[in-house]
């Protein structure tokens, strides 16, 4: 898939906008206990991007399997399907300039309808669904659009406080055009009261920032008698135009 293009059709080579680190969660968030010993304490080294960060690998549509974007069926036995509320998640990958990010790789993972993950280290008593693996992936089209089908994950308890519960959520990993755009986040569902109680959600300081992670129920995109739709747009770092930047020969 193509990289960002300048008006004359060349790939973009501008540096990415500085990350707004007051918008993201800080590293040290003691109410999310695991962060305490895993948070760097010294100041970060701030640098404008070099070619090592501006560039990134390309993922082609040919690497995708037919069921990669269908979590209802991609782990299920033939003729069977995962248990749970059938949903479609769709949206657009944009950058901070509002441009679509064509070819962005999206990978997602989630618990099953009962809130149970298929993982060795998972100990929740909710049952595994033999027809649900919990992973999928897709690549955004030329306008940055993506979509996949899954079941709505259940909320689950986790060891942090004695009675902390994660709201229903889908984890997203997004790979745009440059290594510096790399992002992992989580999608929440409109109307879930657990969102505002969750210590992980609340690592994000700004309520308006949290709201950008809550997918909206979209009845227009819903398939009648089949699957409800949720819209979830994702924004990656924007990049400068390199038009007027001084560049040395060979750079």
């Amino acid at each position, binding site marked *: 898939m193509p990289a960002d293009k300048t008006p004359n059709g060349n790939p973009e080579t501008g540096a990415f906008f500085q990350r707004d680190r007051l918008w993201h969660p800080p590293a040290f968030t003691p109410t999310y206990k695991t962060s305490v010993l895993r948070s760097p*304490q010294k100041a970060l080294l701030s*640098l404008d991007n070099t070619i090592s960060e501006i560039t990134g*690998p390309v993922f082609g549509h040919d690497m995708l399997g037919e069921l990669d974007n269908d979590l209802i069926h991609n782990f299920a036995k033939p003729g069977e399907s995962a248990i749970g509320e059938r949903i479609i998640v769709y949206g657009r990958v944009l950058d*901070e300039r509002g441009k679509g990010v064509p070819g962005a790789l999206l990978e*997602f993972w989630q618990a099953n309808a009962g809130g149970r993950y298929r993982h060795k*280290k998972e100990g929740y008593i909710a049952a595994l669904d033999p027809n649900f693996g919990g992973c999928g992936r897709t690549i955004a089209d030329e306008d940055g659009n993506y979509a996949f089908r899954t079941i709505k994950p259940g909320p689950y308890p986790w060891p942090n406080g004695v009675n902390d519960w994660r709201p229903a959520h889908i984890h997203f990993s997004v790979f745009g055009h440059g290594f510096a755009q790399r992002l992992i986040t989580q999608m929440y569902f409109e109307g879930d009261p657990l969102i505002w109680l969750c210590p992980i959600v609340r690592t994000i300081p700004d309520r308006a920032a949290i709201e950008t992670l809550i997918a909206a129920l979209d009845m227009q995109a819903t398939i009648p008698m089949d699957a409800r739709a949720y819209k979830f747009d994702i924004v990656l770092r924007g990049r400068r135009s390199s038009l007027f930047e001084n560049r040395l020969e060979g750079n």
Partner: protein
Amino acid sequence: MVQSLNRLKESPSQTAGPYVHIGLTPNFCGIPGVFEEDLGARMVNDKTKGERITVRTRVFDGTGTPLKDALIEIWQADSDGLYNSPSELRGQADPNFTGWGRKPTDMVSGECVFETIKPGRAPFKDGRMMAPHISFWIVARGINLGLQTRMYFSDEEAANAEDPVLARIEHRLRVPTLIAEHKGGGVYEFDIHLQGDRETVFFDI
């Protein structure tokens, strides 16, 4: 009032959590068959140009315990210093080298091993050459926003000494936190410390 810049805000990060492997390395964590192989598992093939190296990494928390649930991605130039990316305008990188790798840390030892090649040198923005380096991105449970850093090579002393990025590190005793130790035979060890006296220099880049 003035005109709006019509900028969007980047989606805020959330931790990768304890089950990041389900999404990013499902074959590694016991979910076979959904994807043929885990993305980024193989960086080199028989035709890849350059010196084969092995990078062994561990990530230590504030108590000195290695993380056993982290995931690391690396990104690097080919042996000529070219990136395999559309935004690389200086030339065509080795088509047999993607430059990108992804590995989970081992669930018992915490070790993460990349089989790759030694990168060539690429230019800084002003045209000065950077020393050979590999960019790292580290995510895990308890890490709220992926950590960015670089690995340099202990056997590139002259290049490291003129590297414009390493030169920006104010506290010079922290420079070695970015330099992997050559153990011989093309094996490099790179320990990443999240906290403490040996805390790795992480980048806002």
